[in-house]
């Protein structure tokens, strides 16, 4: 164990009482007292003592909670006057943590409050309690000590947004990610090149335009510049012809500009959609490979939409953002060069004034964004309420609460309106200020320009008009650069999230060179299996179970006892943390996924019907099944009759877009699916929980047929379902507490007996009514 770090004053106090720093086993800081004040303290464990130190509350001390507090909090010495209490371990029967609503209490002997602490120290305190338990009850700790993970970026000290994903957004290598996204554009190189040419063409034509409609039009044509005509090869004096020529040129410039824009738009659309498609395909593929725990720890729906939106956001940046960095830089530089070469004094004035409007934009835009965020939130709560009401329409109607729902809706609706109004109001302000500064800038340029023209210092009106045209052309690109950074880091973040899923390593992985098992016998052995969804919280503890070939094993137990977890392990949705599971003597970790999945089928309490016909749903695990086989499976699952009662029979579309099925009907479809899969090992997890007794009886018959020649594991609350089980195990609190045949368990008078009695009584009670 790591050496315990404590402040000097504490160590001194301990050594005064004969406790050397070497004898310390574990220490945990506390930050509260039982009077609900913030106060520093320590709980320190040695081999024979538990030391409690507290200091008087210090209101001047700033409390830092997680996110602010770095490691080393234990070393900080506040030099307090410690009040102390030493307890001999022999006197302590138990030390427990009791979680309060937002803090924790350390309690000895079920009634002595030793210390209070905020949730900041919860984890550490749990470790201390575990150390205490080990002293009291020396036994190998089967749960691994959780590693004290670094949650902060070692470079800059920022906390990682996601603990499982040690990526510091501040220090993230944006360049690498950028290059990685670029790889997705590689197949479209040719199109990209054309697009870039279009971009450059557009920029160049834009550069020509002010010259044409300023200098050429005003200074050469209007001023009747003969030299200019000569240059064009037009006879002197024919200015109308020249005008016609210029107008035609201008027309063609505009026309080709539009054509280039259309061309560029077409290519952009093609590239964007293709890249988004490629990205989504990769993401979907990667998600399919991930283990079930990945889906459990995240909300699947939001994850999916988020990632898909990320794909679009990234791509749009790469198309609408990245190339423009080039184009706009080109525009700005070339425009500036032209401007300076026209009249450097005026160019300087413009250069000083232009950034003002950019700054105004930069200052005000974030607020506009936050207003958009507010509207988004209002919209979301409005939508969720509407959704809530639509799904709950039956309840609303049943209790006649339409009026109240309307009021509730109005509140949210008004909030939405307010948010919308706030945006409009601010947007007006923003546009007003922004365009005013912009107009002001060009006014000043005009003013100085006209003054220059009037003073007659070789400065013509046409040149001025050209110049103003260039000034106008600068503001767009400059604006672009004012928010490009935000956009860029946003999109890189999105890309990072996407790659996180693409790179995620599934927890349950197929071994290299797995063992093939085309036709297993169906023997299952669980050898000292321990498993928990969270480390430190084992759901199953040291389970030993031998299920013989062709046996039907019933699993009984309270809700939350770990029954479903057990079968999840057998079908290798998860891997056990300790121990191993063997099929026919082969560790499931070594088995090929294909053989494992083909030979283990599960009918679970959560039935899922895919979008599609009844036929497709039944044939899900075995798409090559013949129609005759599908019908046979449906008959065996007692589904045939209800399927034929539907007008379209086996071709009826079911699932989210189709006909709605009742719980029992869905259940029977999924049983038919399992029958058709023809597995060697069949797992029934509350398979008949949502059907009526009569249907259950029918399904029971089919299951009786089904279990022949297979190993079956059946979980049920209704014990009558397990009538035909060869053997039963009772799981309580993650452990197998009873095991045996039905008569044996009844004889035991334990949990099984009690459950059985309760259920028969309940049935009897129903009879009396």
């Amino acid at each position, binding site marked *: 164990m790591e050496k315990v770090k404590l402040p000097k004053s504490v160590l001194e106090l301990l050594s005064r009482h004969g406790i050397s720093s070497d004898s310390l086993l574990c220490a945990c800081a506390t930050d509260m007292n039982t009077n*609900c004040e913030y106060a520093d303290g320590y709980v320190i464990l040695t081999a024979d003592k538990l030391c409690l130190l507290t200091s008087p509350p210090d209101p001047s001390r700033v409390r830092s909670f997680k996110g602010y507090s770095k490691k080393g909090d234990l070393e900080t010495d506040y030099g307090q006057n410690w009040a102390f209490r030493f307890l001999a371990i022999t006197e302590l029967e138990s030390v427990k943590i009791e979680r309060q*609503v937002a803090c924790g209490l350390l309690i000895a002997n079920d009634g002595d409050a030793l210390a209070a602490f905020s949730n900041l120290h919860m984890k550490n305190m749990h470790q201390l309690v575990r150390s205490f338990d080990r002293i009291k009850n020396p036994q190998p700790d089967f749960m691994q000590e959780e590693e004290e993970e670094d949650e902060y970026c070692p470079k800059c000290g920022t906390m990682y947004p996601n603990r499982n994903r040690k990526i510091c957004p501040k220090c993230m290598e944006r360049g690498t990610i950028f290059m990685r996204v670029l790889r997705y554009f590689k197949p479209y190189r040719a199109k990209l090149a054309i697009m870039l040419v279009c971009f450059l063409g557009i920029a160049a034509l834009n550069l020509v335009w002010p010259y044409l409609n300023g200098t050429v039009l005003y200074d050469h044509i209007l001023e009747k510049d003969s030299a200019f005509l000569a240059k064009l090869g037009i006879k002197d004096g024919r200015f109308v012809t020249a005008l016609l020529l210029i107008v035609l040129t201008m027309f063609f410039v505009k026309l080709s500009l539009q054509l280039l824009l259309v061309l560029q738009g077409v290519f952009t659309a093609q590239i964007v959609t293709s890249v988004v498609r490629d990205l989504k395909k990769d993401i979907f593929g990667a998600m399919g490979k991930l283990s079930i725990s990945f889906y459990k720890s995240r909300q699947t729906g939001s994850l999916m939409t988020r990632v898909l939106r990320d794909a679009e956001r990234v791509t749009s940046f790469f198309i609408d953002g990245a190339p423009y960095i080039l184009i706009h830089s080109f525009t700005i530089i070339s425009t500036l060069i032209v401007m300076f070469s026209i009249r450097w004094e005026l160019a300087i004035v413009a250069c000083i004034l232009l950034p003002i409007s950019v700054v105004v934009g930069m200052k005000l835009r974030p607020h506009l964004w936050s207003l958009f965020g507010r509207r988004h939130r209002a919209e979301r709560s409005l939508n969720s309420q509407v959704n809530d009401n639509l799904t709950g329409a039956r309840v609303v109607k049943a209790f006649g609460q339409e009026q109240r729902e309307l009021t509730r809706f109005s509140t949210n609706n008004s909030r939405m309106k307010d948010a919308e109004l706030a945006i409009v109001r601010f947007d007006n302000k923003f546009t007003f200020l922004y365009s005013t500064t912009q107009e002001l800038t060009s006014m000043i340029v005009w003013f100085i320009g006209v003054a220059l023209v009037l003073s007659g210092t070789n400065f013509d009106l046409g040149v001025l008009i050209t110049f103003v045209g260039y000034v106008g052309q600068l503001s767009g690109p400059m604006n672009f650069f004012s928010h490009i950074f935000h956009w860029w880091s946003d999109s890189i973040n999105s890309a990072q999230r996407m790659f996180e899923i693409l790179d995620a390593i599934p927890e349950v992985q197929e071994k290299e060179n797995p063992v093939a098992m085309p036709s297993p016998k169906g023997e299952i052995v669980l050898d000292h299996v321990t498993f928990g969804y969270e480390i430190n919280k084992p759901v199953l503890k040291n389970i030993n179970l031998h299920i013989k070939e062709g046996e039907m094993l019933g699993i009984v137990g309270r809700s939350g006892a770990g029954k479903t977890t057990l079968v999840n392990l057998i079908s290798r949705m998860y891997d056990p943390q300790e121990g191993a599971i063997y099929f026919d003597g082969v560790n499931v970790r070594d088995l090929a996924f294909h053989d494992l999945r083909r030979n283990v089928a599960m009918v679970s309490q959560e039935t899922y019907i895919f979008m599609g016909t009844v036929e497709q749903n039944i044939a899900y695990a075995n798409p090559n099944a013949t129609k005759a086989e599908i019908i046979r499976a449906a008959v065996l699952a007692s589904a045939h009759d209800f399927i034929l009662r539907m007008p379209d029979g086996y071709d009826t579309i079911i699932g989210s877009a189709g006909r709605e099925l009742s719980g029992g009907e869905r259940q029977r479809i999924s049983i038919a699916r399992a029958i058709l899969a023809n597995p060697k090992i069949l797992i029934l997890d509350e398979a008949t929980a949502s059907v009526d007794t009569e249907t259950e009886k029918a399904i029971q018959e089919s299951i009786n047929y089904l279990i022949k020649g297979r190993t079956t594991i059946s979980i049920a609350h209704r014990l009558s379902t397990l009538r035909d089980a060869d053997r039963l195990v009772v799981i309580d609190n993650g452990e197998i507490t009873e095991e045996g045949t039905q008569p044996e368990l009844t004889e035991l008078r334990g949990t099984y007996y009690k459950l059985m009695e309760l259920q028969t009584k309940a049935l009897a009670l129903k009879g009396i009514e």
Partner: protein
Amino acid sequence: MPPFGKTPPGGGDHEEFNLEQMEKETEEMLKLRYINKDNAEFKRTDGGFVSVRIGEEFHPRVQVVRMFPFSDPEKYISIRTPDEHSKEIGIIEDMKDVTKETAQMLTEQLNLRYFTPIITKIVNIKEEYGYAYFEVVTDRGACRFTINMGGHAVVHLSETRILISDIDENRFEIPDIMKLSAKELKKLDLFL
């Protein structure tokens, strides 16, 4: 015994199963017991908790729980056994129904259970990379804490009252945001 009661395959001996007792238990489970100064006696324990005696019944330590911690903290207090599968011993409908001393000692228990510093001043809020970093002054002293932007860290208990949970689920409360200054409100704007 009615004929339609299923006989368990293991051979159910119905005689041993006390139906009456089961019914009694069920009835007990469904009953609400209100307690007040007349039928219950609360006492402090040495360990810093509270014990209760109700007639013959004695509980060396009880858990005190609010049924409506936000909307009605002084009423409907549930007195429960402290163990994991805690059961209700009785209900105090109103803190006024017990003696002042009892109310005081129960309130102490409640304060610890629902420990939530009240934010009196917002010094700074910084949002960065999915977290918001708060620097505030509370009635228990200055605090710095961090919340997750993605989740439901900020809960609106009413139009003006908000509850903030940091990443460890430590709680902080702003009872009335209208009492904050315009400047502080602006800092909080993102969460309103």
